[in-house]
């Protein structure tokens, strides 16, 4: 990561914080209360954008993995790993916030007969296993390639998980985005979009911060070897 690229980080972090604050303000004070769901529908503004951000991170990880396999540049290995790490964090948050929403809406913390939930759990566990694979191999090109192939395979599960709720016939998980467009008011949709932008930007900032930290760490290790 170049010095000029690191310099943009504080600005991006401030923008993410501002957008998050604005999204929270809209979600709690501007967006109207849903007729049936009531106040608990406000979880939607954090749960769905977090899930979409998790997909984004896994997709970014797969893209970087593809670049590694294609170009052979080892810097993509770290970028793919950090993106998948971020995706796993946001995946865990998706499961936790979804579980809280399920408890208040359906009266249960989890429903095993819901394809959307189970497929997301499968996706999450698949990427958890990525770390087991990665840390069971010695550092080097072999580990980078194996991790890249695994990360690339996982991305196939994203459309399956995303479409599951639309393909399932018997479900209680709500479908807000249909072929007729979003099933909500304009203000609700705007709130959702801003929350989504804020969380994606937050994830990107965290990705860049973690990446910079890991690169500094690697440089210091190399410097210690040179000096020591």
């Amino acid at each position, binding site marked *: 990561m170049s010095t000029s690229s690191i310099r943009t980080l504080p600005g991006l972090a401030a923008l993410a914080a501002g957008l998050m604050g604005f999204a929270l303000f809209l979600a709690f004070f501007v967006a109207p209360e849903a007729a049936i769901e009531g106040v608990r529908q406000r979880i939607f503004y*954090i749960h769905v954008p977090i899930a979409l951000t998790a997909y984004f991170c896994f997709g970014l990880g797969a893209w970087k993995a593809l670049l590694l396999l294609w170009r052979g540049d080892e810097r993509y290995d770290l970028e793919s790993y950090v993106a998948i790490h971020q995706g796993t964090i946001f995946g865990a948050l998706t499961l936790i*916030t979804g579980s809280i929403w399920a408890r208040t809406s359906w009266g249960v913390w989890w429903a095993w007969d819901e394809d959307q939930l189970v497929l997301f759990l499968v996706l999450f566990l698949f990427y958890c296993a990525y770390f087991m694979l990665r840390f069971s191999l010695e550092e080097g090109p072999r580990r980078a390639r194996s991790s890249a192939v695994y990360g690339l395979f996982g991305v196939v599960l994203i459309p399956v998980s995303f479409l599951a709720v639309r393909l399932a016939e018997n479900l209680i998980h709500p479908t807000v985005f249909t072929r007729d467009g979003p099933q909500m008011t304009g203000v609700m949709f705007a709130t959702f979009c801003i929350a989504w932008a804020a969380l994606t930007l937050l994830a990107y900032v965290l990705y860049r911060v973690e990446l910079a*930290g890991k690169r500094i760490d690697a440089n210091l290790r190399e410097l210690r070897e040179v000096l020591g």
Partner: protein
Amino acid sequence: MTAGQYVAAAYGVVFVFVLVYVAIIAAKLVRLQRETTELLALARGREAAVRRDAAPPGEAPGEA
């Protein structure tokens, strides 16, 4: 628990996750700073040794 408390819990969990993440990054920064200081001391020690070795016999280090 009321629906409002569940909503607060959902947002609170996200907030706590971000806080924990920032705390981990802060701890890492402290470690990187400590390592940088150690390496700087090591590099300065090396530089002083090189100057001492390069100085002509009888000349005090730092006068060259």
